[in-house]
């Protein structure tokens, strides 16, 4: 394998659980490289996922609870946005959120008791954690979702479809 000069940067970032997102030049390098999937597979036992606009590592053996917490946070946020007559997908994909307002919106939800038991309870810490992993971008009390949020939308679609199939079989 021929290592690009940014190799160490790529490996360090991905191993920190970060998403590398287009138009970051590192994304182009990963996208073009045919060797990286095998490199991560054989060196670390991780799967390199390269989507249209972002790349990240995954592992079947992971027991990362933070991911579950993020999925719950997004699920309840979308539900509240939908109930407020907002186009939740547009808002999540392109909009900007005020950290305090969002925290209050979630706290008013009847589902807050679920989030309270997760890392979402320390909301600022939660936003910081996921900003570090490039799933969010936060600055001066506001945050945005990055393109990587799509994996959670895809997850929801799969979940709905599998549930539908299971219900049909029953």
């Amino acid at each position, binding site marked *: 394998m021929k290592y690009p000069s940014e190799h160490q940067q790529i490996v*360090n970032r991905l191993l920190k659980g970060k998403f590398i997102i287009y138009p970051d030049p590192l994304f182009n390098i990963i996208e073009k490289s045919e060797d990286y999937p095998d490199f991560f597979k054989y060196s*670390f036992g991780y799967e390199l996922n390269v989507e249209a606009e972002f790349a990240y590592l995954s592992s079947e053996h992971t027991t990362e609870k933070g991911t579950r917490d993020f999925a719950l946070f997004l699920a309840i946020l979308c*539900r509240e946005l939908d109930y407020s007559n907002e186009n939740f997908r547009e808002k999540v994909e392109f909009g900007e959120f005020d950290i305090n307002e969002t925290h209050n919106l979630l706290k008013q939800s009847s589902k807050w008791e679920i989030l309270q038991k997760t890392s979402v309870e320390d909301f600022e810490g939660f936003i910081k954690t996921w900003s570090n992993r490039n799933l969010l971008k936060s600055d001066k009390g506001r945050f945005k979702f990055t393109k990587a949020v799509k994996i959670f939308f895809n997850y*929801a679609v799969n979940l*709905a479809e599998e549930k539908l199939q299971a219900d049909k079989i029953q």
Partner: protein
Amino acid sequence: MKNIRLSGKNILNFLQNHYDFVKSVFHHSKPEFIVASDVFDKFIADYNEQNEAHISVSKLIQVKFCRQLPTGDYKINIHYTNFLQFVFDDFTLDLPDTLKNRYQTIFQLFIDLKAESNELKINALIQNIISVIEKFLYDIHRQTQRLLSDTEALKANVEEYTNLTKRLEKAVFWIDEYIEPLNRILEKEHPQSFYYELTRIQAYASEKRYTAKHAQQRIYEKLYASAVNARNELDQNLQYLTRELKPLLDRIKQDSIILTGFYHLVEDIDNINKYGALPNLIKKSRDNVMFKGFQDNANYFIDQFDYKTAEAYYQETEDTMHETLPDSLYFKEQLIKSNQITDFYEWCFKILSEHTDNIKLHDFFKVTNLLLEEDIIAEYNLNERKTVELQDAIVEIPIISVYEVSK
């Protein structure tokens, strides 16, 4: 005096005077526009209670607003319902098959027109085509408007459609039953589509408006204009359908699926992995780039050093007498006494054996150090070596002969 013949004014007066009644019956009875007799009676009774100008079933039948079916139910007159749909801007959806039948009429009329040579019949056919095109355009227009307003309602009235499955079902139904078939009817490139037929009518009329007899040129001109106008209107409707309605419904469909998925996640959080796997993001690892298997190996290695001092249990042992050996001077005397020795190390072993059964390396070397004495001369035979077994070691030694220097 009561008019025997029903005039337009009677009908318009009726609509104006009893607008509220007509409106409530219209909304209640759509889309079939049939009302059960008891419900119909109640509508009349309620209306009469609240209004000075009373109505009755007989009056309603007189103005041809409705007729009673053999089942006893009342059916609203189709001419009223068509007009009222326009008045209330509230159109019912026809199944695309109804539309399909209508445009197939145009196909047939056009075939007949091309084959017809009788001028009067040609005129009648062209009038007919123009009229059916108009009706068809009107149908398409009201379908599109209806779908647009319903879709907007579906998108906005979250409260009415809190049941996500219902929202999803509705979006999927409209796409499959209306949008797609409408798209097919209006598909520009498809030879069986209405749009394609219009293009042919337009081309035919365009040619005929110059080549036909003068008297007919004007009517072909009308047909041409009708076709051009129809294509423009269809373009606009197609735009609504393909650029607005379809993406909007697709979006509602997709959004509803996402919300449904999230709903199941939140509602069944304890069985999170039962359906659909969560993204397996990795945990944040340290900066050190290493294979995770290394970690186990490294932990195993480090564990060796991370031990508690073993608790020691001492077994009481019998005291053994410490054997004391003579000092080196004694051995030197013995060596000198022995005169010349051909195998020095063998002698050392033997002399030590006389004093102890447990010859240790330490004691053995104490005796062999005699070689270093100045008055002892040693001759080495480097080719020959032998092994001596001591209590705590096995040594391989050369054969050495020694003698005193004075000798």
